């Protein structure tokens, strides 16, 4: 089957497929199975997550005190590489991996659209990520001193973006075209809907980042490097993806994960669902930040639209959280680790978006240094990571076939919460130091606390990998079809892990919670 092959008119006969088999790690090579591809995305993103958060901790530690252990150039490059890396090597692929695995199951499809393209995207992303890391080490990176390494960094980032966009096209096309009969767009599970919104925003904004990189590369390689390719201005042209509002775009799928986890683990249907879907859509619209590029629009932070977006984005978030809180009230929360991680994600999201709202208020002068914005970025990325961890804890039994060790997950609840509070809030407090002279003396202490927070996130990534491993180990309690016993959406109707083709015959879907309808 070619990359561009269309789905056959007749559906795959899923009733005669081989029984469920846990794929060996070796089967990933050459596989177009969305479950293998998704699992590999997730594992690789978590490994990069450990490295990325350690790099963030190093970059912060380098600013403590008067003597730094990295040269000024190296320190700046580690900071910039970790900021871009946490988004393109960790958060986006983590969500994309989960989506590649889960979205076809949630919409009742036998596979992801363009399975080989999805596999090609994953391998291209992995190769580009490796090249990006290596190029950054050999004096590449933005503004690096070795010209060829800088070119390699830019090409690797271009490859990363193309790969992530290709993977996103596969997921979006699955959600649009391969839904099972009766599953209208307003009936798709929250995670699938949030991937639709988030993926659409990525499709609109990541190509703009590609355009920035293209200009930098052409000027650096062929134009003499005096304009876009000038060493000191390279990162400034792409840094908009690490700031608000764009950074919220990488959090959107996390909102859907949190909603799905809360609905299932409280055993309640989400009320006023269409309103919640609208809230996710509005959050997405308010996170389009490709226009707020300091390099071409230096005064964007004085723009009323930018300030309004920073404030208004709180509204859909509060609406969504209201719906989630109602589920807690109406249902019986099961105190499992995915629910705890979902709550951590909610807390960090609220803190991050609230910090973003403060950031746009000019009289507070929080934009005078980078501390507050960096602290806010850590909160938002931490919220996304916690949501990803919640998703892995929640769908882990589906992915591995066995229940995950809940103790590891519960430990991770504390680790992620600590990471967010220590890593993000402390830097936000340093940001206030410019206004309150009493805090300026505590700057070094607060930055050290932030270092500890970033290190905790690295540990959190490791714990997620260990948790996933606990589900795959021999002797893990079998998950069955519905690992939680209160599953509402279609992924809980197939075996764990799902066999080739995922489902047999599915009944026509008549509500957003088809499994609850079946029970009734």
């Amino acid at each position, binding site marked *: 089957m070619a990359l561009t092959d269309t789905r056959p008119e007749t559906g795959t006969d899923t009733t005669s497929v081989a029984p469920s088999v846990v794929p060996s790690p070796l089967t990933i090579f050459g596989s177009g199975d969305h479950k293998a591809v998704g699992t590999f995305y997730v594992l690789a993103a978590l490994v990069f997550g450990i490295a990325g958060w350690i790099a963030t901790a190093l970059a912060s530690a380098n600013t403590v005190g008067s003597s730094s252990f990295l040269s000024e150039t190296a320190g700046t490059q580690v900071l910039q590489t970790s900021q871009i890396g946490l988004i393109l090597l960790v958060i986006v692929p983590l969500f994309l991996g989960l989506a590649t695995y889960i979205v076809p199951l949630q919409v009742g499809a036998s596979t992801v*659209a363009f399975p080989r393209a999805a596999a090609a995207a994953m391998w291209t992303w992995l190769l580009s990520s490796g090249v990006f890391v290596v190029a950054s080490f050999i004096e590449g990176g933005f503004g690096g001193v070795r010209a060829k390494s800088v070119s390699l960094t830019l090409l690797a980032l271009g490859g990363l973006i193309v790969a992530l966009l290709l993977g996103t096209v596969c997921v979006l096309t699955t959600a649009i075209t391969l839904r099972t009969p009766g599953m209208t767009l307003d009936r798709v599970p929250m995670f699938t809907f949030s991937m639709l919104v988030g993926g659409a925003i990525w499709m609109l904004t990541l190509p703009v980042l590609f355009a920035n990189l*293209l200009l930098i590369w052409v000027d650096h390689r062929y134009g003499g490097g005096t304009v876009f390719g000038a060493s000191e201005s390279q990162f400034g042209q792409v840094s908009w993806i690490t700031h608000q509002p764009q950074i919220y775009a990488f959090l959107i799928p996390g909102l859907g994960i949190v909603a799905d986890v809360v609905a299932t683990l409280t055993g309640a249907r989400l009320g006023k669902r269409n309103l919640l879907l609208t809230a996710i859509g509005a959050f997405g619209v308010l996170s389009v930040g490709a226009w707020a590029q300091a390099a071409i629009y230096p005064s964007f932070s004085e723009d009323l639209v930018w300030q309004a977006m920073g404030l208004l984005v709180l509204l859909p978030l509060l609406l969504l959280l209201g719906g989630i809180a109602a589920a807690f009230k109406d249902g019986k929360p099961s105190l499992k680790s995915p629910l705890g991680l979902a709550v951590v994600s909610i807390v960090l999201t609220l803190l991050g978006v609230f910090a973003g709202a403060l950031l746009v208020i000019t009289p507070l002068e929080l934009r005078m240094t980078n501390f507050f914005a960096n602290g806010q970025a850590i909160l938002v990325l931490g919220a996304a990571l916690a949501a990803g961890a919640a998703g892995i804890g929640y769908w882990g039994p589906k992915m591995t076939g066995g229940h995950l060790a809940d103790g590891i997950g519960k430990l991770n609840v504390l680790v992620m919460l600590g990471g967010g509070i220590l890593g993000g809030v402390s830097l936000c407090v340093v940001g206030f130091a410019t206004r309150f002279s009493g805090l300026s003396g505590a700057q070094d202490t607060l930055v050290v606390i932030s270092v500890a927070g970033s290190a905790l996130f690295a540990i959190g990534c490791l714990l997620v990998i260990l948790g996933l491993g606990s589900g795959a180990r021999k002797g893990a309690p079998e998950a069955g079809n519905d690992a939680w016993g209160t599953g509402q959406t279609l992924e809980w109707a197939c075996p764990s892990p799902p066999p080739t083709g995922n489902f047999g015959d599915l009944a026509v879907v008549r509500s957003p919670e088809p499994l609850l309808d079946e029970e009734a």
Partner: protein
Amino acid sequence: MTAHVLPPAPPVQRPRVLVVGSAFAAAASFMVFIGLFGIYFTARSDVIGSGSIWLPEGSTIPLQQPNTMFITLIMTVVTMQWAVSAISKNDRVNAYLAMGLTLMLGIATIVMTTYLWTLMELDIDSGLQGVLIYTITGAHTVMLVLAMVFVALMGLRALGGQFTARQHDGITAAAVYWYAMVAVYALIWISIYITK
């Protein structure tokens, strides 16, 4: 004896996976140019605002070649739609002819673009203008090549007998991407060549 006429077959109920996927890919490609044009217009506005003229002294961009390319690409819209229309009527000969013509006109556009580059007297290292103009027109040429590969691939599949009047998503999808490429050229024609 009464002749019984069977009712027409119902429309095929199948997901248009490739068409939707291609539309997303076309949208992403389009957004690359939106990003490039955002920077182009900002830079041009700054240069003109400072009292200078946009193109460096001595540089010229003739209009004959861009106009010819625009007309050529408009013709490819017709030929591509001809291909879609022909295959939807199971007229394979016309579909092959239309796709072949589209590819030939695409090659002509690439030749014309490279010829224009030799005429412009604008070096890529001449500063802001050179980098922006060559990046945008070069990226469009890459998009044109991708669209041609897509059309050629679908043409080969059509030659292999894969598409029918009831299932011709591949050619429709290639047409969607092709139209996006032509729309991008329309932007380039107005922004870079006409309003220079």
